[in-house]
């Protein structure tokens, strides 16, 4: 009966109570479906003294999708997003990304907020306590070096692997955040700070695999919103070692506009490669012409430049980078020609 360490569970009913509980218990963790957090507690990776159950707060369960925009509360279940008729029709990239997460039972449990804030992963981190102890722990827990990059000088390279983030990044989404000081809304892209740069110190805008979110102490994500862009075609695809309950070799979201034979707009985002979901910079320069070798070569160059998988999974980094590029090219072609 004592599989878990001692902790208290608080079950606030309103968002204000959640924020107050977070402020009163600075070491607390918000609990969504538990598919990420409870596993990490069981493995002794984290030991929060207080869990705040986010599921009793009615306003966090709202989901709205129409021609104007998309708004999803952070406690909405992933299966609800994947099956929501209007999300499937109007925001296919989001529904497809949700449908690609883990397995069906996990999607009944996991929440949108949990997937957006998913803990970064690494083969040296997601291990049992005795395994990590035998390896002198790692930077992301209590160790002093990153085993993936021993010369990283204090930079952690654990990989972000949430699927909703890249999908929503291609739609230019924003996140609503509630905290003890105020409520604020920021572009989703600014939530993720896992740049893992060795030449700059870790700040609120520059982090790594360990400090991968720009949330301030006590803050929680309450909703994610995106505007509808008429004429946008979008989709999501992911390669895993097997088809369910497996973290990605690479995941990619593509959104594009086609005008006649021309590619008019292009946005591509990846997950499972870097310590943050990466919205490729420079895709606008590939637009304006037909979908030809020039676009594919340009895309390959952008992937080579910005996608940086390290040896954080059992599949080697150079393979994941190639998979990411190929997956993006295939999905882009499919959406352009559909």
């Amino acid at each position, binding site marked *: 009966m004592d599989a878990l360490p001692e902790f208290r*569970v608080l079950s606030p009913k309103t968002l204000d109570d959640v924020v107050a509980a977070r402020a009163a218990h600075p070491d607390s963790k918000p609990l969504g479906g538990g598919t990420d957090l409870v596993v990490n507690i069981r493995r002794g990776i984290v030991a929060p003294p207080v869990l705040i159950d986010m599921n009793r707060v009615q306003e966090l369960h709202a989901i709205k999708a129409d021609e104007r925009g998309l708004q999803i509360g952070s406690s909405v279940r992933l299966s609800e997003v994947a099956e929501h008729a209007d999300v499937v029709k109007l925001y296919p990239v989001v529904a497809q990304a949700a449908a690609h997460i883990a*397995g069906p039972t996990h999607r*009944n449990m996991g929440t949108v907020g949990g997937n957006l804030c998913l803990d970064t992963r690494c083969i040296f981190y997601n291990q049992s306590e005795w395994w990590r102890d035998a390896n002198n722990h790692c930077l992301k827990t209590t160790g002093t070096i990153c085993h993936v990059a021993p010369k990283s000088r204090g930079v952690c390279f654990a990989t972000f692997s949430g699927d909703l983030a890249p999908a929503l990044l291609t739609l230019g989404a924003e996140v609503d955040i509630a905290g003890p000081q105020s409520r604020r809304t920021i572009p989703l892209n600014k939530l993720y700070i896992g740049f893992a740069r060795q030449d700059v110190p870790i700040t609120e805008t520059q982090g790594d695999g360990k400090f991968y979110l720009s949330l301030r102490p006590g803050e929680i994500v309450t909703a994610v919103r995106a505007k509808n862009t008429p004429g946008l075609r979008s989709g999501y695809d992911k390669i895993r070692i097997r088809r369910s309950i497996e973290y990605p070799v690479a995941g990619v979201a593509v959104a594009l506009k086609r005008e006649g034979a021309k590619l008019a707009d292009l946005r591509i985002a990846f997950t499972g490669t870097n310590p943050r979901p990466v919205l490729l910079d420079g895709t606008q320069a590939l637009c304006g012409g037909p979908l030809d070798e020039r676009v594919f070569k340009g895309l390959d160059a952008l992937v080579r430049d910005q996608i940086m998988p390290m040896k954080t999974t059992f599949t080697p980094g150079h393979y994941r980078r190639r998979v990411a590029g190929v997956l993006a090219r295939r999905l882009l072609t499919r959406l352009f020609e559909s």
Partner: protein
Amino acid sequence: MARLLECRLNGRDRADAVADNVLLLDYLREKVGLTGTKTGCDGGECGACTVLINDKPTLSCLTLAVTVHGKRVDTIESLGVDGQLSAVQRGFHEKLGSQCGYCTPGFIMASAGLLRKNPNPSEAEILEALGSNICRCTGYVKIIEAVKFAVALNAQGVPP
């Protein structure tokens, strides 16, 4: 800290004092004594601990018991009524969907959850619905046959 947990377990209302850090799986097996739900990987990867919460397949090894307060929980023990096997149970029995049997309660609950939501699933939908469960014996072919058989039985009025 312990608190009062009230839920509707297998169709009967229950109230128990449960500590905050107790998993639903341990509550069911150790406190209530329903050992049909199995502990497998202990990390949400195998699905052996699958139960239905408000009719939705859920991993009891990653669910805190106190969070099911006020909800309906159905375990494998809820399926057979008066000695009559449910459609899914009969499917697994007659089509040999179970070998060592350890994963079977999880598979049966995931299948029962599917049939409650969609009484006439396609083969693709069956494969999709069982994606969170792992079986190391059967190779899954017999399990898929079992679920298809259960779909036919369910159509004749046998509850899933």
